[in-house]
């Protein structure tokens, strides 16, 4: 029986929770795909309908993109465009491509609902280009579901642990 079958018709059943190591492996793999610029494979980790959001630095964890200004508030379609754009040499900020290293840690399982399992992690992402290295740090909130036996991201929200995007100037990579 697939996990989706386990969700009752009214959709109230909580998603089954796997071991923390399973989610850690998943997030470490996600980071590796981004570090290696394997963007199509990275996008394939997202379930159709998924969201990817980066609220402005210092925002509350539950801030909503329909009433507050974010840096990034992608629905699934726009996230697809983001990936396509980043693959083009005319995405000037990332061409030539920057070198990135992502550290992911402090992975915790927060709970589970019908949408999936809520996972939080901390991250430090180093982006180097033109002999300048910028550091992005913060927490990420994921909703991860098991679909046809595979873990898939339903929502990814990156909460920057910084006052402002100083001195970075841009989030031209995917965090």
């Amino acid at each position, binding site marked *: 029986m697939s996990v989706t079958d386990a969700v009752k018709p009214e959709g109230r059943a909580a998603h089954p929770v796997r071991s923390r190591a399973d989610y850690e492996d998943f997030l470490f793999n996600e980071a590796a795909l981004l570090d290696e610029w394997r963007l199509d494979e990275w996008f394939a980790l997202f379930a159709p309908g998924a969201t990817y959001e980066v609220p*402005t630095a210092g925002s509350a964890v539950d801030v909503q993109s329909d009433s507050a*200004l*974010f840096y990034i508030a992608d629905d699934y379609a726009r996230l697809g*465009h983001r990936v396509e754009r980043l693959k083009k040499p005319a995405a*000037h900020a990332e061409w030539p491509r920057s070198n990135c290293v992502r550290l992911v840690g402090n992975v915790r399982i927060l709970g589970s609902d019908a949408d999936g399992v809520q996972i939080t992690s901390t991250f430090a992402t180093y982006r180097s280009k033109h002999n300048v290295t910028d550091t992005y740090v913060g927490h990420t909130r994921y909703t991860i579901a098991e679909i046809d036996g595979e873990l898939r991201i339903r929502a990814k929200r990156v909460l920057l642990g910084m006052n402002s*995007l100083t*001195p970075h*100037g*841009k989030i031209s990579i995917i965090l």
Partner: protein
Amino acid sequence: MATLLAPRRESGRWVQEDQQAGLFKVNREAFTSADVLAREREVIFDRSWLYLGHASELKNPNDYLTRRVGGRELIFNRDRKGTYQAFMNTCPHRGAQVAREPCGNAISFKCFYHGWAFNNNGKFATRSPVGTYPEDFGQDGSVDLARVPRIDSYRGFFFISYDPDIVALSDYLAGSREVIDLLADHSPNGMEIIGGAQEYSIRANWKLLVENSNDGFHAAETHETYFGYLIAEVGESILDDIKTLSQISAGIDLGNGHAMVETRAPWGRPIARSIASWGEQGKADEARMVAELQQRVGPERALRIADRDRNMGIFPNLVINDIMAVTVRTFYPETPSLMNVTSWALAPIGETPQARKRRLDNFLEFLGPGGFATPDDVEALESAQRGYAAAKFAPWNDISRGMRREQPRADDEAQMRAFWREWNRRMEDAQ
């Protein structure tokens, strides 16, 4: 170090303009020199009206916010009666900030260092045991919070000046007033800043962002991927649109160094030009907004409000772009090659949730550090700044485009020349 600024005006140290030949050149040292920046602080930032904030950010009496403007920490607040004021956010005692939250509501401010306190009109209000200070201590106002010399507003936009003798704000704004009017008239309910500001830095000289913010020439090249996205979203029809729309295109000098471009761009406008991807609902909503505008402001102004895009620079460093969304942006140099930028989104009060969502989607698609366009602008500005290291051998920027056209187009550079003329006038006069 001042000798670096010689020789003087006669040779066109920073700006060379030759109307006859149709040439306009800016020396790249204007972007790299520490002496130029020191002079700019004195004759530009300390002698202009600088954007402080929007009335909607202080909704109630006693509301305050803290903000860095022109290199100084300020408190922008309203007193008990609701009057808007601006103070230097530094304790008259020993200098620490008396307000350290980004915003709040306070009838008084107390310094955390030694506990000196002030009411929200800036008046010294510290109780000390008798004999600690002279009896008349502070009665001359010398230990009140220092007021910013000038504060004034135009249609909800508050400005300050560090020059007590500066001309009145409405005179200073000159032709930009009319453009602010168009913006303030978007809605019968007034306009508000949407929660959250985008704060970021660019490793480039601040004037590069002045130029970039209303540069119609760079769009197709720098933002090819954004337009690619737009084609995917709106359809191939925008390619034909772009050809037709390019007939509506002007670069306009608004006086006193202010300037804008006015065009009709292929993207959707939240007030009020729908695009296919907004569907029937969007189309109906926008038609209703256009009808409301026509009734309230007349057909001519309604057309400009609903169907024209404007990128405006108010000298020296306020950008108000009324394009796929409305952004208000200001920025200051930290060094000749580093600026800090703050961007806000402005929207009609009482906008429907659907319209607000279209607006914010539009904003984020193009604008800001995570958009599909602004990161490439940042890359271009930083790339130019790196290029200026070769100024000794490649000393001049060319800003001549469209110089001989009777009515310059948005993809000409008349709007930049308007900025540079005012910049040059002040810098040269100061010598």
